């Protein structure tokens, strides 16, 4: 039985691979000048069926729209006929194409990211899309939540968060001294970058105090609170084997479950839904979109 399932899955993968190749042929890179910055941002845009909503997919911490989880999600949705827009946050780098290292100079702030999300949503709307679904992965999900806190755009119909955690918390390695240092630096107007501990960037997150502090807002409580405050339906897809659970504790899933979001836990999947769990992720996304946009 299991062998038959495996065989079927293999066939499915081949089909998806072929479909994605055909779909990718239509994807295009678009640039958009972010208002208020002398910066251009880059995104991958796929025009789907007109009667289906556009999906904005946001990558995780320091990565780009080329990150495989993002690509996978975009492909699934493009295959489903959905218009997709996968922007790469500039992180203050003009037409950024590459992931940013921990020790790169980080001057970008959470608000900069929110502004870029807002700019891209505006770009979609300008393109005529009135139904927009927001999909985020990892910290991208958190930033979408932060955006949704600030903007309640009626065009946004649905939000799907994958691998949703938070950025600030002692259990994540956040050093109160770092926060104190950064806070003091701002006070003293010492804006030079400094190395902090931030998530997996242990003591080598080279950032300006403003940049560093801006993301501290995204703590556990804030995420749960924003989930609860959402005015649009939301889904949260989590991998049961995500190693972040080791830091944040398994009760995080319970806490998510207690929010209005629809929590879907994919058993065995890691933080990036790697390997065969990529298809589970895709299935869940298509399924969710299918349920909402018939």
């Amino acid at each position, binding site marked *: 039985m299991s062998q038959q399932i495996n065989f079927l899955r293999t066939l499915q993968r081949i089909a998806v691979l072929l479909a994605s190749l055909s779909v990718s042929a239509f994807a295009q890179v678009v*640039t958009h000048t972010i208002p208020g910055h*002398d*910066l*251009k941002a880059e995104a991958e845009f796929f025009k789907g069926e007109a009667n289906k909503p556009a999906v904005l997919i946001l990558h995780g911490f320091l990565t780009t729209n080329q990150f495989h989880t993002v690509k996978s999600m975009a492909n699934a949705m493009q295959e489903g006929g959905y218009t997709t827009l996968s922007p790469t946050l500039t992180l*203050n*780098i*003009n*037409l*950024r*194409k*590459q992931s*940013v*290292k921990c*020790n*790169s*100079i980080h*001057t970008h702030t959470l608000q900069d990211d929110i502004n870029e999300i807002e700019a891209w949503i505006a770009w979609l709307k300008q393109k005529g899309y009135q139904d927009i679904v927001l999909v985020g992965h990892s910290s991208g999900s958190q930033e979408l939540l932060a955006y949704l806190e600030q903007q309640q755009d009626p065009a946004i119909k649905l939000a799907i968060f994958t691998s949703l955690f938070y950025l600030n918390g002692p259990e994540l390695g956040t050093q109160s001294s770092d926060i104190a240092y950064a806070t003091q630096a701002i006070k003293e107007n010492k804006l*030079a*970058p400094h190395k902090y501990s931030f998530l997996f960037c242990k003591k080598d997150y*080279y950032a*300006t105090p403003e940049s560093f502090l801006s993301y501290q807002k995204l703590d556990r409580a804030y995420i749960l609170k924003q989930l609860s405050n959402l005015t649009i339906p939301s889904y949260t897809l989590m991998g049961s084997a995500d190693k972040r659970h080791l830091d944040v504790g398994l009760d995080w899933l319970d806490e998510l479950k207690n929010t209005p979001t629809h929590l879907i836990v994919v058993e065995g999947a890691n933080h990036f839904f790697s390997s065969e769990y990529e298809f589970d992720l895709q299935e869940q996304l298509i399924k969710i979109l299918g349920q909402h946009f018939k």
Partner: protein
Amino acid sequence: MKTKYTLKLTQPSHFYFVSFLTIGTLLLSLMIWSFYKEGKALQASMLQQTHKEAQQELFKALNHTLNTTYEQLQTLADWDEVHQQLHNPSYYFFWHDERFKESAYFQPYYQEIELYNRKGSLLAPASPQSDLDSLLPEHIDTLPKASLKFSRNDLPYVVVFHPIYQRDNQELLGYVGLALDIKQALLKQNQFFYLDKSSLIFEPSPSLSTEAVIDHIQFKAVDNPVNFYLWELIQKFILELIVTLALVAGLVMLLLNKLMRSPLITLSNYLHALKANPNSEQRPPAETFWLKELEEFKETLFEFHHNLQQTQTQLDQQNLIVWEQARRDPLTNIYNRRAFDEAWNEVIQNYHKHPIATAFMLFDCDFFKALNDTYGHEIGDEVIRISAKVIQQALPLESPAYRIGGDEFAVIIQHRTEKEILEIAEKCLVALNDYPFQSIGIKEKMTFSIGISSLATQKEDFLTNLPRQADIAMYKAKQSHTSKIQTYNLMLETEASALVSNKVINRVVSSAHTGKHIQLHFQPIVSLSNPTFYYEALLRIEGEEGLIQPYEIFKVIERRRLEVEIDQQVILAALEVLKKGQLPERSGLSINLSGKTLLQPNLVSLFEPFLPLLQRYKVVIEITENVLIDHIEYAQKVLNKLRQQGFKIALDDFGSGYSSIRYLASMPVDIIKFDMSMSRALGSDSKTQQIIMATADMIIQAGFDLVMEGIEDSHMLEQARLAGATHVQGYLLGKPAPDFTPPSLQAHEEA
């Protein structure tokens, strides 16, 4: 020329030995030098090749490094963070000083890197945290070409710029500038197999284009271990070759020395020793030769020499015997005339160098001829034997006696005073006189005469006169009945010459020595069987008062012992006659020789000039019977030689002396001449006549020609014819005359 060439080739063994060694060493050195040179050339070639490889390697490395640098700069130009800095250089120092150096883009051989805006200005003029002098300019106008520069410390670095373009519209955004530690970059980015990395030196110079950089880099090729190992191998090989060849050469030389040279030298020395001492036995060298052939040669040499020595000894012994035989008188077993001549010549020669007292002594048996006639030859011979023995025993040991004539003995005595000599003579005389000759049947008393001549230390000329002087002294002794020992003095000579005038003596002596005044008279000898004749040459000397009589001439000749000299003059005169063709054709000449001349060693050569004339003339040599009998062996040898050459030998005066028929068979003669007494005897009693005729018949039967002398009338001629004479001579046929008077016509016709 040939001799010179041979001399050059013939050298002692060490010459060839050293030559071989020298040439061998030279050839060896040449070969080793050639090896060494080839090895060096190979090493140099490999070094050159390695250097070339190293140069190519450096060139490739330089290109690779520059290309890599351009690629790295291109990657940098595409790096987000570079764009970030160009967009907002607020934190350029932090990026430049910290972030960049931590990034994967940073390379340890980047000495300095800077970003420039599109206007060519540094994003920040200078790093406030750096005191170092900037290697990169603060501003660039256009995109500079890559160039090689040197810091103040003369450290080389390459400055490279690369443009950065906007990603969306490809507009120039700025530049990235890099000061590259070229040496470090080269070493980090490249692997070198031929280049010695530690040898890289960049020559300080003004800025250079990268294309010219290669010319300003000093480098060395790595030590090629193979090359050095090879060179070590070559050196080792050469060394081993030298040692091996030296050992081989040494062994060869030792072997050659042992096998050839040393044996040759030993053998050569042995041969020298044999040569130096041919008569002593030389043992072969004790050294054992390795070569069997040489060992055999050595043994053979020894055996050969040994045999040679034995043969020589035998030969010497035989020679001694022959010598003794030649010098011993067979009758008496004392030395003979030849031994005397040799001994006397030696005395003369030694006297020339060391004049010493020398005496000459002559012994003669008185009336020996009568004794011989009376008792016969056997008793005569016995008397001679006894005389010789007695004289020899009485003489001192160092003075042997010589039998120089029939009954004549000579003794040479040296280192003695006249008194001692006289004593010796007296001792001899006493011994002779005391000998009991009666025991052999002689009834009469035997007497002996002794003549002595002596010379203390006078001139050599006088020494040669001693025999003649002793002869004179002996003649005097014979004449005396009481003083049988006479010592020569000048008075004796005067006495001897008293019988003839001094003028005659002087003329005869002078003629004997010079040949002057000699006349030959010729008496015909006529054949009775055919109408031929020849002449006997008879000596005459022209004196101041007419011809000197023959008896006078011979008296002087005999007394002065000038027989040899006068015979030589006669021979020369006869030769002259024949040469002048004065003699009638088909005739001949007969020449008389004394006994002394017959015994001269040069007798045969005296007659050599006659040889061409023998075809035209008959030449007869007449010898008296006594001489022949006394020296029969020697006479046979010499006369037979002359006979072989074509001369005829005549036995003169047969019947005047011993007339011993016993000797006739062995006489080396062709003609027998009957003495006039024999011819006359034909006319005596019938018994005598028969004996003579029987004798003549016997002679004819034996194949001799028979000449009868003294034919004075027809009766005698007839008797001669009846007796069987082949030739006749006498007044009837012609007297001796100075010209060639033909025989008396009547008599000739009768004959």
